[in-house]
């Protein structure tokens, strides 16, 4: 009997032990950080920690200490986009797909800015996010699979590809900030959206949202997006008329025309699968039309698929400049008549950037364009003086041979807007192009560098991806200073610190992420501070 009692006692103890030994930790600890990405804002760096449904904001103090703040965002981040002024960060989340319980999150948009966060719930999940350069609107849409910057959804779900969700961050009182619109579909799916600047239309000053699908273009009046009944969008189906083949838009540019006129706003569309460019002229609409503007369509054959477009001021007036590398030429299109003028180029340039304001001596009546290309066959850049196109187009080009192609061009912010940083295609360095003197100073590296500019344009940071040094180049003297860093460096951001000075934050995004903070003008790394385990902090 005693033995039975003892067995009973031991069994009770064992059961108690088994029961009390239960208890799970928070799920986040079992998940490795996935898709860690860092984004530089003006005064901080924001690290996305998607598996923990948060971002970690890193602010440098005056003594290079790192202040860390964790901010919750929606589950399963789809896109992260900083605002153009680098004051805000927009985080679009798919939410929990599919929702199985009331605790599962809905799709959402989180707006992060200094000292405040705003969470906006959405009714449908989409992956594409584009921010209005003017800061008022956001467009959320179904991004095509593989779209740069868009993460795939966590699971398959039904998505209406023709739904565009417009978020008005400055919605008038009584109006919803979120306006979902389903655009008419002729079989196409949205590929890109563009917010236009304010343009002068027959109905007044307007901002438009231009939606490019894989076969048409849709115009939506943003200033009347809250109207009831809603103003329908205008869809322009693209085709040559000679064949049934749809034309695939690949980019647009817009020009407001003369300030005194309201019927000469033009949208030019380059086509990826055709030699034509499409010009839409926005004039008055027919009486009774729900919209107060209407596009007139013109096609101009530029001899090959255009790789870049820009409206430019020439000595002959406004032109649409199209770069056609397949024929090693630029083509100027007269917008009213569609007449074209071909300008042969020394290289097959594929990119064009207007640098008029940065070049001294320009009159303002004619633009100067910088031509560069991504292909290694291009051996440099050229300045294209558009004030000489009418009579002597062959004399309008001034080549700056670099001995290598140009992979990308970085615009140096004001007040050093007269400089451009050209990343060489061969990966052996980069060039600092002075638009005023039209000189290109080479800076040689031993490995393909990653480049990062300071917001004030004073400095350029160059570093090998995954290396353990960062180099600062003073853009006024082009003097490089190399700073060793104890950790592997994958991202570098030049930010304004708490004291109003500048600090540089170098991130090692492996594991749980470490960050090294240095004074931006440091001459060595002795005064730096490295903080480890950033993604271990601030969790429940």
């Amino acid at each position: 009997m005693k033995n039975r009692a003892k067995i009973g006692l031991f069994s009770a103890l064992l059961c108690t032990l088994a029961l009390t030994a239960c208890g799970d930790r928070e799920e986040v600890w079992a998940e490795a950080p996935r898709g860690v990405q860092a984004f530089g804002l003006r005064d901080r760096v924001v690290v996305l920690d998607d598996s923990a449904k948060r971002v970690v904001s890193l602010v440098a103090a005056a003594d290079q200490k790192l202040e860390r703040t964790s901010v919750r965002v929606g589950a399963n981040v789809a896109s992260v986009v900083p605002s153009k002024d680098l004051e805000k960060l927009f985080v679009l989340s798919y939410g929990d797909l599919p929702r199985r319980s009331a605790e599962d999150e809905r799709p959402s948009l989180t707006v992060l800015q200094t000292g405040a966060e705003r969470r906006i719930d959405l009714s449908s999940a989409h992956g594409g996010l584009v921010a209005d350069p003017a800061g008022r609107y956001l467009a959320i849409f179904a991004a095509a699979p593989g779209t740069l910057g868009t993460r795939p959804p966590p699971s398959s779900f039904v998505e209406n590809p023709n739904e565009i969700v417009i978020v008005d961050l400055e919605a008038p009182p009584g109006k919803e900030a979120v306006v979902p619109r389903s655009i008419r579909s002729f079989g196409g799916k949205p590929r890109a959206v563009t917010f236009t600047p304010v343009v002068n239309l027959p109905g007044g000053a307007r901002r438009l949202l231009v939606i490019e699908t894989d076969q048409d273009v849709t115009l939506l009046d943003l200033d009347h997006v809250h109207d009831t009944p809603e103003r329908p969008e205008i869809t322009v189906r693209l085709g040559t008329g000679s064949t049934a083949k749809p034309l695939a838009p690949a980019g647009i540019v817009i020009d407001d025309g003369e300030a005194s006129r309201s019927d000469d706003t033009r949208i030019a569309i380059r086509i990826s699968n055709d030699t034509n460019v499409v010009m839409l002229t926005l004039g008055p609409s027919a009486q009774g039309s729900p919209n107060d503007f209407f596009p007139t369509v013109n096609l101009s054959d530029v001899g090959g698929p255009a790789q870049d477009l820009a409206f430019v001021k020439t000595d002959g007036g406004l032109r649409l400049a199209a770069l056609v590398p397949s024929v090693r030429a630029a083509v100027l299109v007269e917008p009213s008549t569609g007449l074209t003028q071909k300008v042969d180029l020394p290289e097959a340039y594929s990119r064009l950037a207007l640098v008029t304001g940065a070049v001294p001596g320009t009159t303002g009546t004619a633009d100067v364009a910088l031509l560069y290309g991504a292909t290694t066959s291009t051996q440099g850049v050229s300045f294209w003086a558009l004030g000489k196109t009418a009579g002597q187009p062959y004399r309008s080009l001034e080549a700056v041979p670099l001995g290598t192609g140009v992979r990308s061009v970085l615009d140096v912010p004001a007040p050093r807007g007269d400089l451009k940083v050209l990343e060489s295609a061969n990966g052996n360095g980069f060039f600092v192009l002075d638009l005023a003197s039209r000189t290109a100073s080479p800076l040689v590296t031993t490995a393909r560098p990653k480049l990062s500019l300071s917001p004030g344009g004073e400095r350029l940071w160059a570093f090998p991806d995954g290396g353990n040094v960062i180099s600062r180049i003073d853009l006024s003297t082009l003097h490089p200073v190399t700073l060793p860093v104890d950790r592997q460096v994958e991202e570098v951001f030049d930010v304004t610190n708490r004291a109003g000075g500048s600090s540089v934050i170098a991130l090692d995004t492996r594991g749980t992420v470490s960050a090294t903070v240095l004074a931006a003008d440091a001459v060595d790394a002795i005064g730096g501070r490295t903080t480890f385990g950033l993604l271990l902090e601030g969790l429940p």
Partner: protein
Amino acid sequence: MKSYQVASFAFVSVLLASRVALAQEPPAPPAEAPSSEPSLEPLPEAPLQPRPIGVPPLQLRSTTSVYAAPNAGAESEDAPVYTPSKPNSYFRFGLGARVTYAPNAGLDPFTESDSIGQVSLEVSRTLLARGKTSLAIGIGWDVGAKATTARGVDSDLTHHRVLVPIEGRYHFASWLYGFGKVAPGASLLALAVKDASAPTALSDLRPGFALDASVGASFLIIGHGPADQKKARLWATPEFGYGWTTSARPTLTTDAREDVLGVEEGASMNLVAVRGGFFRLGIGVTY
């Protein structure tokens, strides 16, 4: 079921099996004696005599000695064969397994569950023994470790408690005593993660104050005999209680090394405290 739970179950099973096996052996004569009152009074005129060789000893399961009166022809048969000592007073050497249920968010990076298993070592000495009660004091050491991953990087935890148990006992029978224990002491928590973005493991040591309060019972397994007989005895001891430590906020930093550029700062973690109910199952040897 966790490994420590399996181990605990096996441990308990072995103890039970051994106890049952012992119970099934032929009982040592005579049968259990009353625990406190002797059934026979020692005769004052009969001095204790050593038992002759070859005569089986008198075995009684009692906390007090039973002295048989010598008589003619059998005087050496009932005589005690040991020098009696103070009953219920002994040294105890204990070894056990302890599981603490400590639900604390600060421990989450280092353990997947809220429980921490530890090995317990303890030595104590009876200071006072009066009747069925006694008081003992000693020193104990609990140590346990856990390892897991925290956000994809290896992490581990080692927890030490060095305690001074003050234990009051009540001896219900020669084979059973219950106890209540208070054990103040020190706690040391060692935490570490091995992060790819750090040059060494990130770690921290957090000392603190610890206090245990518990109750339990000890069951005699081997070594039945008079309580005042000085001999080694083996006990099984289950114990319940609550353990408490002061809280601390660990900062996981790199190991000290040469040629460090600038200043290195660690990750500031959540507050850590190992507080919660615990269960300990041990064996003890008394002498």
